[in-house]
């Protein structure tokens, strides 16, 4: 080993307790960062999956302006055919057409204004989790067509309307052309998602029947798509945009446009997380600064001797830098190791804290969290701590350039 | 009446693999008002004996009686109280608390004893004047010379009017003039106040001041004789 390295290594252990305490601060911070960042990324992945998977999908094709105004007339012509074309496209894992209308739904006892969604019964389960959450009865028959007056509704809506399986619901609303729309449908299934808001409002009917009742012709309001690779959404959007380029009234929207809150929720959550990380890193940097400054100050006399022996201040500064490097490397290694093990374990076992259940329900998060085991999540925090530790050693190292050999040697 | 009686004191230390004999069956009697020097090469046991007499260290076996106290029977806390009230110490260096001024260093012991502020002030200034440091009460140790620092230490040692002062190499870091002044001060205090002095030293200039000279080697008293004191030549 190089003599300078050896010297730095030995110096590091002159005050082994101090070195260990500083390393411990780094390890603590590193493990915490690894854990929190992994948890954070894991929860974002789940948030995105859960939010988009329930209903909105990754991409939607809609009429221009429909997203904001949701007007009955802003339709996608030949929606089912478009869905069929897109479904066969490479990279698209599922596609389904929908139509949406508002109507007053009445049972024998009750009336509620609700949103009725016309879906393709065969394909809807591939773009939305709701069909899979039918707790009573069944979802719409896959071949349900114009003549099928089936409907599935949310469990709270069913309670509120006081209807059960086999009961009839009457709809009053207006069709696409503004005409009066009225129909009767029979409840074949009750959906229970666990989310009150959804269970209170969801009502799905076959698209063909919907189109007839609301005088839609072959039109729908959106084609919902799921892609194979979530990260490839922007490319897919471009491809589909190309395909529908000849129909100026159509627009292709990615999940960010469909659920603008999602990215922002992530951003605002990240902001507060970064705040905490920043504070932790600064505190560790202070710890390193303190240790290295002390170690330089108490060695003033020694450094004076070295200076008078002809060792340049640059060399001494490098020595101090080297010591910090070694110390930080130990902190990095232990931090990554322990943090990695913890996250690796939790990525299987999951992680839970009290009160999460209700929070999860509200924010569409699962009740157990599984941190994401990824190299980025594990290395990011410790590397930043490492860099800040080196940065913190800068001041003590630079002080050495001000050192004069003779006064330094006389220093107590 | 004897101020100090020790009987068959034994003390050993472990240093690495070796067992070092600090004291080997040392028996000694010191009467009140004596001015005694413990001499011998380093490692002879003189510091160990001094520490044992001051209750800083407990012997492995043997008895020590200092005034009314059986030191070998006291707990750590009781030993601390005994030192606080009955014994004055002067060490070789680092004798003073660096963040306290000369006056505060002297007051320090009284403050721990619980003496009132006014009394502390009066007594510390008086004793500082007595050791020749009037006007330097507010200086920090770093602003005093080595001799002056040692005199502050003496002032602190005698301020609570102990009957016994123990000094371990008090002149080690002093030039001859300062050393002579310090020893003159010791003698003066010994004569005027009747304080018993036990000084461990290997400085031959210091030994000259002693009326009784005990020579130690390898933890054993090899000679113990009275002598006619003579001040050093400066």
């Amino acid at each position, binding site marked *: 080993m190089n003599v300078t390295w050896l010297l730095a290594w030995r110096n590091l252990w002159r005050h082994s307790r*101090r070195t260990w*305490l500083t390393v411990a*601060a780094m390890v603590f911070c590193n493990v*915490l960062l690894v854990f929190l960042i992994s948890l954070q990324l894991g929860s974002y992945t789940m948030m995105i999956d859960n939010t988009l998977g329930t209903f909105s999908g990754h991409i939607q094709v809609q009429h221009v302006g429909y997203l*904001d*105004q*949701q*007007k*009955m007339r802003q339709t996608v012509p030949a929606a089912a055919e478009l869905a069929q074309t897109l479904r066969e496209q490479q990279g698209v894992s599922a596609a389904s057409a929908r139509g949406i209308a508002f109507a*007053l739904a*009445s049972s*024998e006892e*009750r*009336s509620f*204004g*609700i*949103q009725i969604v016309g879906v393709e019964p065969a394909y809807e389960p591939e773009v939305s989790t709701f069909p899979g959450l039918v707790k009573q009865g069944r979802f719409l028959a896959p071949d349900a067509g114009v003549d099928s007056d089936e409907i599935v509704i949310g469990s709270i809506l069913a309670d509120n309307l006081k209807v059960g399986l086999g009961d009839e619901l009457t709809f009053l*609303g*207006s069709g696409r052309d503004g005409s009066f729309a009225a129909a009767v449908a029979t409840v074949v299934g009750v959906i229970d998602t666990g989310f009150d808001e959804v269970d209170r409002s969801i009502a799905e009917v076959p698209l063909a029947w919907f189109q007839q009742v609301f005088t839609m012709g072959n039109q729908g309001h959106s084609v919902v798509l799921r892609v194979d690779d979530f990260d490839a959404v922007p490319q897919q959007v471009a491809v589909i945009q190309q395909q529908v380029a000849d129909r100026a009234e159509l627009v292709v929207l990615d999940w960010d446009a469909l659920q*603008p*809150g999602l*990215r*922002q*929720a*992530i*951003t*605002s959550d990240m902001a*507060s997380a970064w*705040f*905490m990380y920043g*504070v*932790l890193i*600064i505190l560790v940097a*202070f*710890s390193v*600064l*303190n*240790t290295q400054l002390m170690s330089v100050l*108490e060695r003033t006399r020694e450094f004076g001797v070295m200076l008078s022996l002809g060792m340049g201040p640059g060399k001494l500064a490098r020595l101090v830098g080297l010591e910090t490097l070694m110390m930080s490397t130990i902190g990095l290694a232990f931090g990554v190791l322990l943090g990695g093990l913890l996250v690796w374990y939790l990525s299987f076992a999951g992680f839970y804290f009290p009160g999460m259940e*209700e*929070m999860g*329900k509200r*924010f569409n998060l699962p009740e157990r969290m599984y941190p994401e085991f990824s190299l980025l999540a594990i290395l990011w925090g410790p590397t930043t701590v490492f860099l800040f530790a080196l940065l913190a050693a800068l001041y003590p190292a630079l002080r050495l350039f001000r050192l004069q050999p003779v006064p330094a040697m006389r220093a107590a | 009446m004897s101020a100090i009686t020790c009987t068959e004191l034994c003390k050993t230390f472990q240093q690495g693999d070796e067992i070092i004999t600090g004291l080997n069956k040392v028996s000694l009697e010191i009467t009140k008002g004596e001015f005694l020097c413990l001499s011998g090469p380093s490692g002879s046991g003189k510091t160990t004996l001094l*520490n044992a007499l*001051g209750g*800083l260290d407990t012997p492995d076996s043997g008895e020590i009686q200092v005034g009314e106290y059986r030191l070998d029977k006291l707990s*750590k*806390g009781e030993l*601390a*109280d005994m030192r*606080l009230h009955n014994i004055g110490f002067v*060490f070789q260096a*680092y004798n*003073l*608390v660096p963040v306290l001024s000369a006056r505060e260093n002297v007051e320090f012991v009284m*403050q*721990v004893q*619980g003496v009132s*502020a006014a009394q502390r002030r009066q007594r510390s200034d008086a004793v500082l004047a007595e050791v020749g440091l009037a006007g330097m009460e507010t200086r920090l140790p770093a602003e005093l010379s080595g001799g002056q620092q040692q005199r502050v230490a003496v002032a*602190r040692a005698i301020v609570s009017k102990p009957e016994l002062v123990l000094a371990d190499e008090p002149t080690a870091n002093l030039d001859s003039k300062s050393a002579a002044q310090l020893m003159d001060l010791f003698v003066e205090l010994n004569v005027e106040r009747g304080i018993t002095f036990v000084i461990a030293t290997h400085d031959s200039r210091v030994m000259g001041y002693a009326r009784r000279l005990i020579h130690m080697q390898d933890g054993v008293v090899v000679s113990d004789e009275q002598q006619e004191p003579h001040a050093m030549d400066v």
Partner: protein
Amino acid sequence: MGGAMSTVMVLAWRNLWRNYRRTLIMLAAITVGIWAMIFMAAMMRGMTDQIVENTLNTLPGEVQLHHPEYRRDPSVVNRMPAPSAALREALAAPPAVAWAARVRVPAVVASERDSRGVILLGIDPQKEAALGSLPEEVIEGRFLADIDDRGVVLGASLARRLETGLGKRVVLMSQDPDNNVADRGARVVGIYKARLQGTEDVFVYSGLAVTQAMLGIGSDVSEIAATADDYRLMGDWYQPIAAAAGPGFEVLPWPQLDSFLDSMLRVQDGFSLVFMVVIFLALSFGLVNTLVMAVFERIREIGLMQALGMRPGLILAQVLVESIYLLCLGLLLGNVSAWLTIKPLESGIDISAVAQGVEKMAMGTTLYPALVVQDMVMSTVVVLGLGLLASLLPAWRAASLDPIRALSRH
């Protein structure tokens, strides 16, 4: 022992500044840590305050009376008679400052272009104003004049969706108690803007008497709400109201009305504490390090003091007091800087950049951090309590030094 303790305090103070660089670095670290603790707590509290207040504003009144079935099934069937004299008296008793009775039923509103499912509120404008439950801003037209006002007031977003506007007619449809369609045409007399777009889409305001007539329910109402103007002030003030209402009513304070809000507040307090402890732990390594080094540098001195007769307890106290000084200074600076940074922000931070995301959490586009004494006290307790605990180790080591060895150290 008084004298001894004052010596210890003087010594500890001067010792603190012997290595002023180290002390200043540590002080900076503690200050940053405490500032962060309080700042984070204030932000979170601001956020939850807002979520709570917004949620309570969409169903205003911290105490609400309903038909026992209403909350499960908010239908016109589950209504109750207008408050009796005894109940009115109970509702007006302090700390309650305002109350209002309203009809609140699901309905459909249709323009000539489109229709939407909404919640129809039949209200008394004067009483709701006192309750603070009216829309923040009427951007077009006017609000309802009284309970007999035949107009309706829609949210701006809903009006856009319905392609309707001020002065146009809409049809309100709901059901009467016998499940017949109850409807009436009404002119849009006002358009309001709310902090949350969701509110604008859902709530349609109509005069109380007009709505009661439309539904054919006489003077019955769906909901009676009362407020004391401070959601933290829950206590038991709903109980006399419950007593006055008698059986047949469900009277609930907000923690039960929205158990989510309640649990969120508790989670937030817990999270603040966890955050503070984590920050403290990151600090504690530096603190222990500083004290260990301080003791290490002063081994001789400590030996001397022990030799002179200072009992180990006082040595221990000396290190602890030094630590307390450091912590207290840090606490002072941290609290002051937190105060200085948060107070100017209490008028609101614009977070419209992430507005739709936070809207998911029922917040507006402005965040109002709330500096609460409780959080400052909590950080102080955490830092001082755990700080002293962490200092015990170096202090105990100092106290148990062997004076002879300590003195012979070079």
